[in-house]
């Protein structure tokens, strides 16, 4: 039974001009298992999955794919779906304005006898699929009205509608909160027990430990090893060692805490939703001191990002009331430019959408928020700009040949370092980092933590928003919990545990919601 492979990829080599993305990769998946793939960003995981699903057609790579005992040749994604291989990408491919059922059957419509689409039948079939994935929604609901977690379930329902036998998920829980992640992982177990084989790419090692039957680690386009997760030494540490080629004994670098003067004070801060008639942040009070890392923990929809953005030059919400102090002086900012002048910086949770100009180079992105510093009477000193950007490139260890490299082509971790460089160059008193390590690999995460430590050592105040509680516990001095727009707790890190924070994060939910 153990050697019953549904899929074997043999000696896969894929080269792009100038780069060998995969080199003799061997990868085998047993029938009915959940097989995790781990590797740093750029290790070749996604390329391997694109080879498997036919995005890169036969002939554009070397090697052999054996599926169900037969060599297969895919010339496109349709071919692989035809034999039951379905891939769900990290960026979900749903049309927000179409209903759940329309999305599920998009390109695969249920036709009646007349050749027209039979919507009754499609909706009924969708309802059955939704029950199967445990999503309690009406199939005619537009997908755009669902949260990311539910959209993910719709994607899986869509895969089921195609009679999937091998389901590939690329970072399925990256954008999900803990509840949604747990639900998704349970669903994957159920699907496995129902005979569907899963390949899951993930950065979240605790999830892999809890769900995967076997794990393949990829580094620099080569398979490092495949670990049977029943083995006693199948630990996070072993996976990390395989991924980075070295052992990180701790995720979180050491730091001594010496909080100083109070830098940021937010008093009685209330923000209304831009269009709906409700408060998103309700009477929040918080402080951050110099040399201190303060965390904000909260579930999705608790108002974390909304709180941060409204503080940052009122870039979110309306009817904002409350008082804001930076270094003891009250500031009344009307726009982002004034917030930057007041010494506030905000690095967004969605760096591609809100943080970077992806079609431009590192240099331009680094200087974007503080061009005035490089300019005299409106003229930008281009050479000085390059020098500044080069400085950050080496300080931050941004992996790119020059600062003229296009930001859109960097890996997630390096993009995040560009975002941080941009804000550091504005020389802020307080930095608000919204999900600073989302979607980046373990090695780069560690580097980001080191950068945060350097900042507080230099006397800056840092406010970190994160969905990952271990991260907050690992890097913060104090943690505020936010629930339904209210601050429900303030805990020094040495008194906090994941359980106690979660209790505070869910407090009042019932009362308010």
């Amino acid at each position: 039974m153990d050697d019953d492979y549904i899929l074997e990829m043999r000696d896969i080599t894929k080269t792009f001009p100038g780069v060998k993305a995969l080199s003799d990769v061997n990868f085998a998946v047993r029938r009915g298992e959940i097989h995790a793939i781990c590797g740093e960003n750029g290790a070749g995981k996604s390329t391997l999955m694109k080879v498997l699903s036919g995005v890169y057609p036969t002939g554009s790579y070397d090697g052999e794919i054996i599926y169900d005992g037969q060599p297969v040749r895919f010339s496109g994604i349709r071919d692989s779906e035809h034999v039951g291989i379905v891939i769900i990408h990290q960026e979900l491919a749903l049309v927000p304005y179409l209903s759940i059922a329309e999305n599920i059957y998009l390109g695969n419509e249920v036709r009646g006898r007349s050749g027209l689409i039979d919507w009754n039948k499609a909706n009924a079939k969708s309802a059955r699929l939704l029950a199967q994935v445990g999503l309690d929604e009406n199939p005619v609901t537009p997908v755009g009205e669902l949260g990311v977690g539910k959209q993910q379930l719709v994607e899986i329902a869509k895969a089921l509608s195609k009679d999937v036998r091998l389901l590939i998920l690329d970072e399925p829980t990256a954008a999900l909160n803990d509840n949604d992640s747990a639900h998704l992982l349970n669903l994957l177990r159920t699907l496995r027990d129902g005979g569907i084989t899963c390949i899951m790419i993930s950065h979240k090692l605790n999830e892999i430990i809890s769900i995967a039957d076997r794990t393949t680690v990829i580094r620099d386009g080569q398979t490092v090893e495949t670990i049977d997760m029943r083995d006693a030494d199948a630990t996070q540490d072993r996976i990390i060692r395989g991924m980075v080629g070295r052992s990180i004994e701790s995720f979180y670098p050491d730091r001594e805490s010496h909080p100083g003067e109070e830098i940021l004070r937010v008093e009685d801060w209330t923000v209304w939703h831009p269009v709906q008639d409700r408060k998103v942040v309700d009477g929040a009070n918080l402080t951050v001191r110099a040399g201190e890392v303060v965390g904000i923990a909260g579930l999705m929809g608790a108002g974390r990002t909304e709180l941060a953005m409204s503080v940052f030059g009122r870039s979110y919400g309306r009817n904002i009331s409350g008082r804001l102090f930076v270094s003891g002086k009250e500031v009344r900012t009307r726009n982002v430019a004034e917030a930057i002048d007041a010494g506030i910086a905000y690095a967004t949770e969605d760096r591609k959408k809100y943080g970077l100009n992806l079609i431009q180079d590192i240099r331009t992105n680094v200087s974007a928020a503080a061009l005035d510093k490089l300019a005299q009477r409106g003229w930008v000193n281009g050479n000085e700009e390059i020098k500044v950007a080069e400085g950050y490139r080496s300080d931050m260890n941004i992996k790119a040949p020059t600062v003229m490299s296009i930001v859109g082509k960097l890996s997630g971790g390096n993009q995040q370092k560009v975002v941080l460089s941009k804000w550091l160059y504005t020389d802020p008193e307080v930095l608000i980092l919204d999900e600073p390590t989302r979607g980046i690999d373990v090695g780069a995460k560690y580097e980001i933590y080191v950068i945060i430590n350097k900042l507080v050592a230099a006397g800056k105040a840092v406010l970190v928003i994160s969905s990952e509680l271990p991260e907050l516990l690992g890097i913060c001095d104090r943690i505020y919990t936010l629930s339904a727009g209210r601050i429900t707790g303030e805990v020094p890190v040495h008194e906090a545990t994941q359980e106690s924070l979660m209790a505070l994060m869910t407090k009042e939910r019932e009362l308010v919601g």
Partner: protein
Amino acid sequence: MTRTAPPPADPTKEQATTSAALHAGTSDIRSLITRNLRQSGIYIAFVAIIALFAILTDGVSLSPINITNIVLQYSYILVLAIGMVIVIIGGHIDLSVGSVVALTGAISAVLVIQRGFPWWAGIVAALAVGIAVGVWQGFWVAYVGIPAFIVTLAGMLLFRGLTLRVLDNISLSPFPAEYQFIASGFLNGLIGGQGFDAFTLLIGAVGVAGYAVSTFRTRTARITYHQPVESFPLFVARIVLVGAVVMYFAWQLAHARGLPIVLIILAVLVLAYGLLTKRTVFGRQVYAIGGNLSAAMLSGVKVRAVNFWIFVNMGLLSGVAGVIFSSRSNGAQPAAGNMFELDAIAAAFIGGAAVTGGVGTVVGAMVGGLIMAVMSNGMQLMGIDQSIQSVVKCLVLLLAVAFDVYNKRRANASR
């Protein structure tokens, strides 16, 4: 949770790869050629088109008189293209410029021809009206938030209507000689010459010298800042090539009628706006807005103000084009400037601007405009029918953008 020291980075290795990469950019001839081919496909196409028509017309298209004609005939489109490429980089579009050219020309004609104001009052009025138009459209786009496509579509109708109103539906002509001189005047014989104009050659030589000095200074500055530069022979070759082209052009002009006034206006505008887009905070902010609006907003760019000034500037340049066009046609007609917006937009896109915004250059738009000018002119010389000319121009536009899209796809695939 144990806390330990961070893993040591390996700075030597990092530095080695960096300097290797810098080096590759300068010395590897093959990568230099492929990379430049991708970037300068448009220039190569330009040269190819010039060569093609030179052959097809037995060299007539390169004759001194004809080169002068091309400059005179298409100068106002090029002026519009400067403003248009900035609008497009900012992620907008302007469909109204043809109507604005008509309106500004009409106002000028009414004042100068009907009311007897001095010729310069016409120019001032035209530019003022252009700015006012820009303020109007900028207000709706930037502060009310209506897409530029809609605002300028409305503007196209509005300003055409106002033109008809101002002109009372009739053509006005002629302008006084000073006004005509703007578009059809030449600087000639200022310092003499035997059968050619020495002054034109002098200006050409000054231009080349200026170019050489400024590129040399840029190069020196880059070296001081440890930036990669092209190798010295390549650098010299580039200056020699540019110098040769400019001097040939000046030589041809000098043997025709001298230096056209509009060419001077155009050169000043290209230089000024080239610097504006590349070297000023405002220019950078235009690129930032077009590249990622949300990111620009969250970086403290005052998006509304920038959008507003983009349109004010477009209005001003439409006014300049209105003056040149009315001067060239020696009067104002109700239908003046019809479809100019499409030529200006095509010039920007052929010159490499991206439909989604954030990409484009003034120089690129000029080359794009000149490609169309050389083609139209060449086909006219060959006596090709107007309808065929339209078809050929449209194919060139499609091919230029298709080439751009194809290159981007290839660049993306190879990462």
